[in-house]
């Protein structure tokens, strides 16, 4: 055996010269450790022919060495750069060192070269150095132990502690660390394995397997093998089997190795697990002990993986092998074999055999119920399910002391099997409702109901009541079903039982169905809202379920399903006034459907609560009529409003309220096309508004504005314009008056007047523009823009775009002032875009220009679309395209814009391009869509950015401003003074020292504190094999 030789790099040899030599030799550096603050750098160099050399540079121990893993001699240049030492020489040098300096130097050399498993000679020296009388020597020895393996650490510290007096500063940590090392060597230090990090566990299995730390192997492998979502881990299983074998659990090892070896064999491999099997199997027949029930747990892997097509045959062979060895465990063998067949009918005879073998046991009954499968409603399935339910009920009674307990061996088997069933099939308690389900499927509702009531009598749970509710629903006994669901709901929170494969939300949904069909509409809506709130899956179900036909027309139903309707708190009063107010509020919010529903309900309640001529009824009718008119049903609105007007005329014909009723009716009639009727009622409304608010009031202006619409609609253009001007004139005065009163800019009345004036001016603009009267049109537009400047983004977007479009059309027609007014409008109302968005718009305009150039060059849109798709795939443009100025930039710019805007993705882009190719949209429309998507994404990104740093996004280099580091790094007076201050140079008065957590120079101030190692010695050196 060749002697271990270590090559230390001489300190005067530069790292660069080594790498240059490596390059000259044609070697290749293949790995370079990350520059970690807490790990020694190392480099792996591939020398070809599968040979490697390692270069390690340990800062901790101040040594560089080369691990020369070549059978060939070192090249001369490298030979001259190293000092060669054998392990014996290192030990001798360390042992013979006299001065503290020599002791430290030789110890560091020896440890760095031979760690982690120190030979005896060096270990003895290290143990001695740990007790050295010189602090620096023993403290260096203390630092160096972190490089040792568990075994070396345990031995070294053991020798140190046993070797004589231990200095006071060394003993506490040495004892503590020794204890840990002992545990680690024994392999029962497993605290680190309590992790879900599977990579860590796999690493631990591999590492600990080589060190034969069986306890750790067992724990780590088990965590991998029994995890929640298991995927078979051959390596972990093999390791686990080895751990079992090594710790004398031969049967467990054998059963664990069964599957691994069969799988390996099916792959033509003879791996380690097969060896285990080969070594163990021949010994089994001669063993005195027989396998125990617990030994069979690894068989679960076999059963689980039998479903994996790749493993089925191997699993069957493994099961056969198992059978041959577990004659003493007939019940267990039957259980495993039956479960492995899943729902196959072959399993049932095995389960019956088990039932005969273990009379009174739950397990065979549960297995039978499970093996029947969910579609089986035959007599046998029903009988088996009933038998299980009865047996379970019997066990419940036994648990309460009301019946004989089962024999201990039966109870023990059931307890053990429950875990197996839970893992591979279904737990018995999840199967006890099978008989009810079967009875229902067979249509025997009475039988099912009796079974459900028996279940409730046995255990009064939400689950039992829910079953009863289901049955009653099937029997269409709606009231009883509602009662059953109500009982179930009352028990949900108290019910410890978990509903397998579902949730209790169904209780609210089913009660909503039952209530809907029973005419309890409010309750139905409330239950439905609760169900939808709990789970959105009920939305679609509600849409499809004909139980809800009776409330489907209620807008609240759709509101609940679209989550736009919020049920008022159950305790709030549903009086007519509340509902009427709600209807009005919803109308103002534009939620007309809900407003109509609330309005109807308000009217219904008001009619019950109030005399027929009560103003309250008129109010309800007005709110309902308004909602219906603007909600798209002016006919219905007019009907309600006519009733309201009739009531108002009878009780207070000259009131302000009557005026409003007239106005609403006018609107409704106008929308139905009854211009004359509208004119009549608008007129009546105007008279009352003028009477109550004044001839030049905002309310009067509203009337004039609305009446202008009638005139224009009827072709009475001049009258229309006149009415608009009247409205405008009044509103301007009203606004001037508000301003004179000093009203705030956001005063509601002022804002409303401005909005009305903007509308009036917009209508004037439109009317004049249609008539080709540019001058008054632009004048009206300026009036609109003036108000827009005050209102900003509060302007109705439809109105804004209508004004903008009209101005754009005027500009195109060459109307003087149109463009400027349009620009002013944009300034006034468009939200200011951040520079990133503007830049993105510019880039897109370049893209569009480049693609336009392609069109100009005679390329068709289909061709351009195809090139855009090519560009997304990274294809360069063909030369013919590249020759068109700007085209290549446009294509690459397109990809770049798509690639760098997070909101746009390849799927959307390609779909958009494909749609365009198929003729669904034009190229321009498609580009517009993608552009807007990308720009919106840029905008969103700017908004989200806030103070967050955006990693990964290059900041464009600015042309004129040099980056800060172009200043000479030594020319910064601040930094110099700061550093000097820290180092105690600059300011003679300030010698407070280093003020640095890394290095505390204050000396005695820290004496006595427990953790004073400012030099942070965590984990040094232990990553050299990283």
């Amino acid at each position: 055996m060749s002697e271990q030789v270590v090559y230390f790099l001489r300190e005067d040899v530069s790292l660069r010269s080594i790498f240059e030599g490596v390059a000259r030799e044609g070697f290749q550096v293949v790995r370079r450790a990350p520059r970690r603050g807490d790990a020694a750098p190392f480099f792996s160099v591939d020398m070809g022919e599968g040979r490697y050399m390692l270069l390690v540079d340990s800062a901790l121990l101040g040594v560089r060495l080369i691990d020369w893993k070549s059978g060939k001699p070192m090249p001369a240049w490298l030979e001259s750069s190293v000092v060669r030492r054998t392990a014996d020489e290192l030990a001798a040098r360390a042992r013979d060192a006299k001065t503290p300096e020599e002791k430290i130097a030789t110890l560091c050399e020896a440890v760095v070269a031979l760690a982690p498993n120190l030979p005896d000679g060096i270990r003895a020296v290290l143990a001695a150095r740990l007790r050295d009388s010189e602090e620096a020597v023993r403290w260096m020895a203390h630092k160096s132990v972190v490089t040792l393996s568990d075994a070396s650490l345990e031995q070294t510290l053991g020798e140190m502690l046993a070797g004589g007096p231990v200095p006071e500063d060394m003993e506490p940590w040495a004892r503590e660390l020794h204890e840990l090392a002992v545990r680690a060597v024994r392999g029962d230090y497993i605290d680190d394995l309590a992790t879900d990090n599977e990579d860590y566990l796999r690493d631990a299995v591999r590492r600990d397997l080589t060190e034969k730390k069986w306890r750790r192997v067992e724990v780590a492998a088990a965590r991998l093998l029994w995890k929640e979502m298991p995927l078979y881990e051959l390596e972990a299983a093999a390791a686990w089997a080895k751990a079992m074998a090594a710790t004398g659990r031969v049967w467990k090892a054998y059963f664990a190795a069964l599957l691994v070896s069969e799988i390996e064999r099916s792959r033509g491999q003879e791996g380690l697990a097969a060896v285990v099997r080969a070594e163990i199997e021949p010994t089994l027949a001669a063993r005195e002990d027989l396998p125990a029930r617990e030994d069979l747990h690894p068989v679960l892997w076999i059963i689980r993986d039998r479903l994996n097509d790749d493993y089925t045959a191997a699993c069957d062979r493994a099961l056969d092998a198992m059978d041959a060895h577990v004659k003493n465990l007939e019940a267990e063998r039957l259980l495993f074999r039956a479960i492995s067949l899943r729902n196959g009918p072959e399993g049932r005879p095995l389960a019956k055999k088990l039932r005969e073998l273990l009379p009174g046991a739950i397990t065979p009954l549960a297995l039978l119920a499970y093996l029947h499968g969910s579609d089986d409603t035959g007599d046998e399935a029903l009988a088996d399910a009933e038998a299980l339910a009865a047996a379970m009920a019997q066990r419940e009674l036994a648990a309460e002391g009301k019946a004989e307990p089962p024999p201990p061996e039966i109870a023990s088997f059931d307890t053990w099997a429950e875990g197996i069933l839970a893992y591979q099939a279904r737990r018995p308690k999840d199967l006890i409702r099978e008989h009810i389900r079967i009875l229902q499927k067979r249509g025997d509702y009475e039988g099912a109901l009796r079974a459900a009531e028996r279940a409730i009598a046995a255990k009064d749970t939400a689950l039992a009541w829910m079953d009863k509710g289901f049955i009653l629903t099937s029997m269409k006994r709606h009231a009883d079903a509602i009662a059953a669901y109500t009982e179930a709901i009352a028990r949900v929170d108290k019910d410890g039982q978990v509903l397998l494969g579902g949730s209790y939300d169904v209780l609210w949904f089913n009660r909503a169905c039952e209530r809907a069909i029973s005419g309890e509409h409010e309750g139905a809506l409330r239950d439905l809202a609760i169900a939808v709130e709990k789970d959105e899956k009920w939305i679609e179900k509600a849409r499809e379920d004909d139980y809800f036909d009776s409330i489907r027309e209620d807008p609240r139903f759709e509101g609940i399903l679209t989550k736009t309707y919020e049920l008022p708190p159950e305790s709030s009063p549903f009086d007519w006034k509340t509902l009427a107010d709600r209807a009005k509020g919803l109308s103002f919010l534009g939620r007309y459907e809900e407003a109509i529903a609330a309005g109807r309900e308000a009217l219904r309640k008001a009619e019950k609560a109030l005399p027929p001529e009560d103003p309250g009824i008129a109010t309800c009718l007005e709110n309902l009529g308004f909602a219906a008119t603007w909600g798209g049903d002016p006919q219905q609105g007019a009907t309600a409003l006519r009733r309201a007007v009739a009531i108002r005329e009878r009780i207070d014909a000259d009131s302000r309220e009557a005026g409003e009723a007239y106005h609403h009716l006018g609107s409704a009639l106008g929308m139905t096309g009854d211009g004359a009727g509208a004119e009549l009622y608008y007129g009546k409304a105007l008279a009352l508004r003028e009477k109550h608010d004044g001839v030049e009031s905002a309310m009067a202006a509203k009337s004039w504005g609305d009446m202008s619409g009638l005139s224009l609609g009827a072709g009475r253009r001049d009258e229309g314009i006149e009415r608009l001007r009247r409205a405008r004139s009044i509103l301007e005065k009203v606004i001037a008056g508000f301003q004179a009163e000093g009203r705030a800019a956001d005063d509601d009345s002022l804002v409303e007047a401005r909005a009305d004036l903007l509308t009036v001016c917009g209508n004037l603009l439109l009317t004049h523009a249609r008539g080709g009267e540019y001058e008054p049109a632009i004048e009206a537009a300026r009036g609109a823009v003036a108000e827009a400047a005050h209102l900003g983004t509060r302007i109705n977007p439809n109105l804004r775009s209508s004004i903008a479009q009209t101005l754009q059309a005027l500009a195109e027609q060459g109307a003087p002032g149109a463009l400027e007014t349009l620009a002013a409008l944009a300034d006034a109302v468009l939200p200011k875009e951040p520079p990133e968005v503007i830049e993105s718009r510019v880039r897109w305009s370049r893209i569009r220009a480049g693609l336009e150039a392609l069109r100009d060059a005679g390329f068709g849109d289909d061709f351009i679309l195809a090139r855009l798709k090519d560009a997304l795939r990274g294809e360069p443009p063909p030369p013919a395209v590249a020759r068109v100025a700007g085209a290549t930039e446009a294509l690459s710019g397109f990809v770049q814009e798509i690639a760098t805007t997070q909101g746009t993705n390849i799927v959307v882009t390609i779909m958009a391009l494909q749609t365009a190719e198929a003729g669904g949209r034009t190229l321009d429309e498609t580009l517009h869509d993608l552009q807007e998507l990308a720009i919106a994404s840029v905008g969103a990104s700017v908004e989200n950015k806030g103070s967050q740093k955006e990693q990964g996004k290059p900041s464009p280099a600015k042309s004129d401003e040099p980056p800060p580091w172009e200043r000479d790094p030594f020319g910064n007076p601040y930094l110099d003074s700061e550093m000097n201050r820290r180092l105690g140079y600059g300011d003679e008065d300030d010698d407070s020292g280093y003020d640095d957590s890394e290095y505390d120079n204050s000396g005695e101030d820290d004496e006595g504190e427990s953790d004073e190692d400012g030099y942070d010695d965590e984990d040094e050196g232990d990553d050299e094999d990283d």
Partner: protein
Amino acid sequence: MGLPSHWWKDQKPFLDALFAETAGDSGQPGKSGWVWLSEQQSREASERIRSAEESEAPLGAWMPPEAHEACVEMLEGVVPLATRGDLRADRWMRKIHNPMLFADPARPDQLWIALHESAPPPLWIPAGTTADSLAAAFAPYAWPETQDPLPSVVGLSRSVRIFIGTETGMGADFDTIVRFFQGMPMTDSLPWGTRFSEDPWPDRPTGIALIGAGYRMAENMAQAEGAVPSITMRSRRLGAALSVSSMEQFCVLEVRYTPVAHESILPLLTQLLPGLPKGLPSDMPVDALAVVARCRGYQADALLEFVRDPEEVSSLGYHAMGCLAVMGDDGAAVRTLLAELGGRDDPRQRSLGYHVASVARHKRFLHEALLRETDESNVQTLKNALRP
């Protein structure tokens, strides 16, 4: 029938021969992949280059201001002759590549290659006068035209480390500094952190990989636990790797590269840029050199000289920490620095050495220092720090 001759009439004779040998059909790449420009195209290219201040890669993005005037002067009269045809971008398609072959009447004996048309003349690669010399000059920068895989970063055999200043001194945090380098014309846009010892990005991201690069950015820029924060990116033509790291805020630019012989470039840059780090090797690829040219800084040897210079003692701490940062993984070099500081007469200077050793985790040095140290305050501090 005579050979085709080039349209540029002020040419040297070699141009006709080169043109005849390497020109393809109009607009098509010929031998060695260059697409020769017509006179009109050349004029357009000149115009484009002159207006490069408005482009994404203006002169200021390539060169520090002190060289701008010289660069503009050098551009006078140059003639764009050929391009590489189809445009290429960096891996994230954020920066267009358009290498350009130039004739320079002021340097007429050979042609010059700019790795991008707006690269300033001091960064042009001498291309010789023949088809072979032209091909050889461009060969190290041919990727992605070649289908070769990108070189392994760890296998890049040469390296240069430059201390570029501290985050405080530069007035920029590490992320900002990294973004600056990412934004430079001669870096690739896909960076990675120390969590990866190799480039985690695909060589040629296309389609979903390209679109998804932004989403993977944070993950790929992650740092290894306990690592000195460092971000690496390839150079633009992807043959070199540039890492920016910050050790205790002392920032270092490391360039790892495969050597390329361009001996005339560095002397010219050195002449134009007095702040260029001293002692740079002359075999750096031009795309990497273009990044270095934007920085001022010092290599380890120069910093060690500052440490040794008694005149510089007022900035000793700064120099020492810069030196430590730039020495990086080179343990022997760090030990030279520590020995220098540890051997000082002034106990405060020795104390500085202990601080540096502490940052570098050179524990053996500290224990040996404890044996030697005579200043009571330092002894006490060392004991407190080293006691188990």
